[in-house]
């Protein structure tokens, strides 16, 4: 199923980043409409649309907004999470590059809905150009009164600030992101309390992904019911799939939820590079469990991917052809997680580094018979709520899925190492002095 792109409709439009181009395409109409509505109605519309968080967890955005206590006298904050750092995920960058005003409009509507007068865009530190683009877009929008004081004459004020991260993957986790905005070390917080009640500066805060927010103007303009008709029953709307790896045409593709991975990989991306054979793919960013080639007909929506044994996550599809050594691939992933573990929780801090040591040793040909047991043990005890944030699961799910689907390659590597070790000269027992004397006496 192919439909007209919604989020990336501006792709190919000249100067699509400018306000003029955005207004030409009917931009900021949704904001004008929204600020005339009751905030509760805005939230209802988003609930009707069924749009789920595009950052990975898939939590319904409208429900998240409704958790913000309305009657609390504290200020409320809106945060747009643009700290896109998951390996294999690069959709938010594309959205900002193509249509920054679409994101800003989404932020403004969301802020209005939760009664926030300050919004932050927490952007990944490496996104220098993207941060500049956003700054420029904010300045343009302020100039034309789409942001700032008294937005389009509605009496509603909103200031949007761009906050650049300092290069930590963990700051994509919403509470670590909040700590980072507060100027602290980016460490995930204990929950509860959840950010909707105690967030940035101790005030109610909503953190949404760039892509989620980019959906909002379309939902408001064309109605939640319209949005809900796209995709599947429980995963509505279109999704950006960022396909990387061994395909002919890697890149960001927009498709309705429920499009199969075969359509994405073989259709949009033109199949495996050089006519090769698919070995495996990771459907939702590097922390999603890997799936073998035979699951390629899985529809890409939250439920179906979960049923297939993985998760849709951020939609970062990493495709591997049959040249890939799975031991090396897992080592590559674990290198990232061992580097990015914040070091707060014992199981994740020690486990990520330990698992990397073990897998690297196997890859280098020094595997040991007990290694797979060790890996299973780490994967079991560093995930499933053993840690404060899901980074524990993020490195454990790859370990267990790699071992589940490609355990044979690990076993073979270990068996080869054991065989090689067995050919070494055996260590002979050292003759004791006592034995020496005995033999002397005997002679």
């Amino acid at each position, binding site marked *: 199923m192919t439909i007209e792109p919604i989020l990336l409709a501006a792709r190919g439009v000249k100067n699509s980043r400018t306000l003029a181009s955005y207004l030409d395409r009917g931009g900021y109409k949704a904001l004008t409409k929204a600020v005339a509505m009751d905030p509760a109605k805005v939230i209802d519309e988003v609930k009707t649309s069924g749009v789920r968080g595009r950052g990975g967890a898939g939590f319904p955005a409208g429900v998240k907004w409704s958790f913000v206590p309305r009657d609390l006298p504290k200020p409320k904050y809106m945060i747009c999470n643009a700290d896109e750092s998951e390996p294999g995920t690069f959709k938010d960058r594309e959205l900002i590059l193509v249509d920054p005003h679409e994101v800003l409009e989404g932020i403004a509507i969301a802020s209005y809905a939760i009664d926030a007068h300050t919004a932050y865009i927490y952007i990944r530190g490496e996104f220098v150009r993207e941060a500049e683009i956003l700054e420029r877009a904010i300045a343009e929008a302020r100039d034309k009164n789409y942001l700032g004081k008294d937005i389009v004459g509605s009496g509603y004020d909103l200031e949007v600030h761009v906050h650049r991260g300092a290069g930590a993957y963990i700051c994509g986790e919403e509470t670590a992101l909040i700590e980072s905005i507060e100027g602290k*070390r980016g460490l995930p917080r204990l929950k509860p309390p959840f950010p909707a009640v105690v967030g940035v500066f101790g005030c109610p805060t909503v953190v949404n992904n760039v892509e989620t927010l980019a959906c909002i103007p379309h939902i408001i303009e064309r109605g939640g019911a319209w949005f809900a008709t796209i995709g599947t029953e429980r995963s509505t709307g279109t999704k950006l799939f960022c396909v990387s790896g061994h395909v002919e045409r890697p890149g960001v593709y927009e498709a309705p939820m429920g499009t199969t991975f075969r359509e994405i990989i073989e259709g949009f991306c033109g199949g495996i590079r050089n006519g090769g054979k698919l070995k495996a793919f990771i459907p939702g960013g590097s922390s999603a469990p890997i799936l073998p080639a035979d699951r390629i007909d899985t529809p890409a929506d939250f439920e179906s991917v979960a049923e297939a044994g993985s998760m849709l996550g951020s939609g970062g599809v990493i495709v591997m052809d049959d040249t890939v050594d799975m031991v090396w691939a897992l080592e590559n992933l674990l290198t990232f997680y*061992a580097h*990015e*573990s*914040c070091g707060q929780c014992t199981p994740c*801090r020690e486990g990520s580094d*330990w698992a990397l040591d073990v897998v690297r040793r196997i890859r280098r040909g020094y595997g040991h018979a007990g290694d797979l047991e060790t890996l299973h*043990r780490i994967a079991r005890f560093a995930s499933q709520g*053993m840690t404060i944030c899901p980074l524990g699961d993020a490195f454990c799910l790859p370990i267990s899925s790699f071992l589940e689907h490609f355990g044979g390659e690990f076993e073979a590597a270990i068996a080869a190492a054991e065989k090689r070790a067995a050919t070494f000269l055996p260590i002979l027992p050292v003759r004791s002095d006592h034995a020496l004397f005995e033999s002397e006496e005997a002679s």
Partner: protein
Amino acid sequence: MVTFTIDGQSVTVAEGTNLIEAALKVGVEIPTYCYHPGLSVVGRCRICFVEIEGMPRLVTACSTPVQDEMVVFTASERVREARAAVMEFLLENHPLDCPVCDQAGECGLQDYSVEHGLDSTHMIDVRRTFPGLERRAIGPHVIQNQNRCIHCTRCVRFTTEISETADLAMKSRGNHSYIDTFDGTPLDNPWSACVADVCPVGALTVKEFRFRARVWHLEETETVCPGCSIGCNVDLGHLDGVIHRFVPRANAEINGWWMCDYGRFLADGLNSREIDAPLRRTEDGECAVSWESAMATLATLLRAAPKPLVVASANFSNEALYSVKRNLQESAEIMVVVPIQSGDQRRIRNARGEWIDSVDAHSNSTGARHLDLTLVDGVALESYIRDGDGPLLILDAHAHPWLETEAAAAAVAGRPTAVLARGRTPIVDTASLVLPLASWAETEGTYTSSTGIVQLARQALPPAGQARPPWEVLHSLARHLGHEQERIMSPRLLFAEMAAEIGAFAGMTFGRLKTEPGMPVHEEARGVG
């Protein structure tokens, strides 16, 4: 109040109590590393997992407040497995250098490893190390060995939340993060050694105590710091008659879980002793005398005319001061002065986070005030001594800095002077009678803190040589003066008599002071001092 069930026992605790504290109420000990009752909860070590009925995942006890009708299991199969796994993770990179580690014996890893850990490990790789941070003086009193660190951040939280100096910080990220001073300057705040107390492993150890004794050999005596009038509760560690260290002992009302470095490092000074036998000095020279004959000499001295002046000490226990008041001031009508001085400012935080300040250098000037003794400052003390011409009895040669000067020796020159002392001072070197005084650690007694709490300091060591505690000297002197009968005397008896007579101590008993963390003085006396 909420009622919940833990391992089959029903417990009622105040709302908001976390599971660790609630479990302790019924004697269930949940293991902890990052949790400290005096610091904020971070939930990062993950050792305190418990299972709660109806919850799909294990929860950390430190970050879970008790709720009504909660059913908690602290030793189920799932919990034991998870704890064993966390222990294995913690020990993955821990050097296991216990034989050369000074924390051995009071190490959280050792304790819980036996109780909750596996027999062996799956770890066969090379351990992470921190070259350069293995034996580093992170401050004047604290040595860091980062290899042993388990990243609990108690030390960091101590410096941000308790000392409020924010000296320490966790630098870098993940498994390679390490503790360093925030700006690279030494960890030097007035409570710096407390970071070694809160460190559950041997990553931070106290320089002054390192390698002096294995802690399981130490004998510990519960006592009170003599450094100032705040009266922090301490455990005094000693071995074979040598005092090795003070560590703070929890007392919610006074010092929380902390103590200052000044007080902590007084420990070593208590070992010094220069005077260990009674000595009489005449024109013919010095001669050693027995206590009996020294007491007789002293009694004669006190009966002399003009009336002698007695200089007591605000560092004496309540019992000793009460003995001075009863036996010398009241029965013998002798003028008694208690010299006091203001010292450097000392501060400590109690368990509620409130600061207690003191500029009073004496451990019991509050008690002296409650006993209605005449407190004098250095100037007044000097004029009392210079203006009189009778004999002098100085009950503690170290009671006031002025007494330790050459000027003081010159002021008393030519007058019959008896002095009790532990170390040599100019006065001690010229006095006609020198008696060995038991140190603070060698006597039992109660001290009244600046906030009006009477606390018991236990005797750690027998008096060295022939030294005697001041209350004993005064009792025996009273016998020689004829004010006391021959009877058995002890601090406990003195306290009982004092409690019956002095309003501030009304209703207190020595026995209760032995079991309770300290008792506030009678409300009418609270305004005093």
